[in-house]
């Protein structure tokens, strides 16, 4: 097994550099990290070509983000590369928390079977980026430009002018839209004079990738005040290729330059790993902030990922929320760019993802207070919780080593159509659609992979022997709308119901789809292109579905364009 070597991508001169005037492009994405790549792939799948600019010429140096949540994997499935990420990485569902040398808490993140993806897959960021790059190239619509640093951005009405510096000189392009995914320090955000407000956390952490042959179970292990690193926290995670991630709290007074010297790092790791053989592959010292921009849309410039919001890494909410940003933005920008929706739809990107960022920031702030207490009293309560947790189950639930990333439910989104009928369970308007095993043409598949990345309907026809005539006609008419809706019909296994040509039949293997969606015969769900629930009814009515699509795209009559 080889140690990962960063590839060096060749800088290629763009024909734009020889054009007499700045060439016009639909969309430029700035930053080819996981978020920028996901955004570019999503836009390409919606038919929109992008210019993807990156000031470097390789993938992530060091493993950096590691944990990809189930929802992220489902988004990557929609982008066409979830399987490659899941296969390359290490899936896990469980974790343990130790106080000193005693386990005080353990958790299982996904007790429910019948999901394609586990709660998390761990994979070094460089591998994720390699897979995304491969996928971006395969679309044929992503014009990747390495060693291309944006040094100026001017926004004046109909477009955004970018000035790009390269190894052989600078040139300009003009774009209809710019998606900024250039990371926590976001040079573009600073160029535009925009603020990212919040709190810088006064703590430092040592992060190391270690190659070792260890038989620890694939779980997240977190220690408070362990014997091998007293008075501080420690975290251990498995990644692909026998590479392990170790994160050690150092405190604010630690000297970052001193702490990243191998002579300093190796003895610290030796304390933790004992006599086990290991090789240090990469090391860094980081601190972090919990903050966000006030809004993520500024005219024709849209911010996503760390450029828009930053938080504690404990909880794996950084890259996961960034990929959800891209997921939310892709279809909206594609619709606005093609004239299918007014620009207001892009404000809903900001509204929905700001709300999601606030939820993530709240969890991040709470776990940060627990891991890095800001006052003596806070520390005393933290220690009291840990002491009680050794004996009392109630206190175990207060132990907070990072509440792990769960997808945002866009409950208050203006794009939702509120429930008119009674439903139980979590699939409320705004929720990301739940997965379930289904059988299609005798083949076992997954519900989410049978949905597209356009508006989709799900009509539940359990126990029906024929599709009612008006339902069949309504489903057919929705496919012909300006913004079409493709409907899948969900039935119990073995139901021989005849469906109109082109309508996919999903047999609800194990009845999990009906259970998860609290659906009965006649229930209809409308899903957005990002597979969030738009609305649902106990009975199908094409006209109501049509109205809901108009609302979800800011196309309702009476709205200004």
């Amino acid at each position, binding site marked *: 097994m080889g140690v990962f070597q960063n590839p060096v991508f060749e800088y290629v001169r763009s024909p734009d550099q020889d054009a007499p005037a700045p060439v016009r492009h639909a969309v430029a994405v700035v930053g080819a990290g996981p978020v920028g790549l996901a955004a570019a792939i999503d836009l390409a799948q919606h038919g929109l070509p992008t210019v993807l600019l990156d000031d470097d010429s390789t993938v992530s140096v060091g493993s950096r983000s590691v944990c990809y949540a189930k929802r992220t994997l489902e988004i990557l499935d929609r982008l066409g590369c979830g399987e490659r990420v899941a296969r390359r990485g290490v899936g896990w569902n469980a974790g343990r928390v130790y106080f000193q040398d005693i386990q005080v808490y353990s958790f299982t993140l996904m007790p429910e079977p019948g999901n394609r993806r586990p709660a998390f897959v761990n994979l070094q960021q460089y591998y994720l980026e390699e897979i995304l790059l491969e996928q971006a190239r395969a679309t044929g619509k992503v014009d990747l430009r390495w060693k291309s640093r944006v040094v100026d951005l001017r926004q004046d009405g109909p477009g955004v002018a970018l000035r790009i510096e390269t190894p052989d000189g600078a040139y300009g392009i003009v774009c209809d839209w710019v998606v900024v995914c250039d990371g926590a320090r976001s040079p573009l955000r600073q160029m535009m004079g925009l603020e990212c407000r919040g709190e810088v956390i006064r703590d430092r952490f040592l992060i190391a990738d270690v190659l070792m042959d260890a038989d620890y179970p694939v779980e997240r292990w977190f220690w408070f005040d362990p014997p091998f690193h007293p008075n501080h926290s420690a975290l251990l995670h498995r990644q692909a290729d026998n590479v392990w991630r170790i994160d050690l709290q150092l405190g604010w007074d630690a000297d970052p330059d001193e702490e990243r010297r191998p002579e300093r790092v190796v003895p610290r790791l030796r304390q933790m790993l004992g006599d086990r053989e290991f090789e240090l592959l990469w090391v860094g010292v980081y601190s972090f902030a919990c903050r966000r921009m006030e809004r993520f849309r500024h005219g024709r410039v849209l911010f996503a990922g760390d450029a828009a919001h930053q938080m504690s890494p404990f909880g794996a909410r950084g890259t996961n929320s960034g990929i959800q940003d891209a997921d939310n933005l892709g279809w909206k920008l594609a619709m606005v760019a093609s004239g299918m929706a007014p620009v207001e739809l892009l404000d809903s990107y900001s509204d929905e993802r700001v709300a999601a960022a606030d939820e993530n920031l709240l969890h991040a702030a709470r776990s940060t207070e627990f891991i890095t207490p800001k006052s003596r009293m806070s520390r005393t*309560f933290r*220690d009291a919780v840990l002491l*009680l947790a050794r004996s*009392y189950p109630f206190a175990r639930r207060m132990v907070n080593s990072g509440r792990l990333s769960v997808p945002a439910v866009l409950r208050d989104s203006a794009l939702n159509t509120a429930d008119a009928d009674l439903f139980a369970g979590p699939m409320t308007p705004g929720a990301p659609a739940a997965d379930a095993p289904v059988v299609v043409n005798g083949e076992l598949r997954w519900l989410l992979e049978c949905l597209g990345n356009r508006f989709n309907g799900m009509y539940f026809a359990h126990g029906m022997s024929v599709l009612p005539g008006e339902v069949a006609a309504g489903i057919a008419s929705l496919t012909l709308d300006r913004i079409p809706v493709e409907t899948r019909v969900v039935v119990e296994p073995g139901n021989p119901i005849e469906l109109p040509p082109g309508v996919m039949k999903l047999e609800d293997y194990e009845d999990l789809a009906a259970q998860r969606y609290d659906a009965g015969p006649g229930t209809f769900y409308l899903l957005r292109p990002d597979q969030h629930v738009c609305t649902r009814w106990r009975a199908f009515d094409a006209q109501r579905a049509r109205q809901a699509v108009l609302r979800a795209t800011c196309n309702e009559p009476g709205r200004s364009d």
Partner: protein
Amino acid sequence: MKLTVEANLADPDEFYAMLIEAHRDLSDEQSQLLNAKLILLLANHVGDPEVLRQALDAAREGIA
């Protein structure tokens, strides 16, 4: 539910003595830890977040 602020302890003197006794021979730091554990145990016993909020507000009143 409303926070009970009317007299509710059958023998207030006895409870007070128990509380002081629990802290006997402890350093300030140890006492702080004991208090914190006690608060967490009692908070879990109460359970109702509205009652806890009222108690926190009442405790904070007049301090800062």
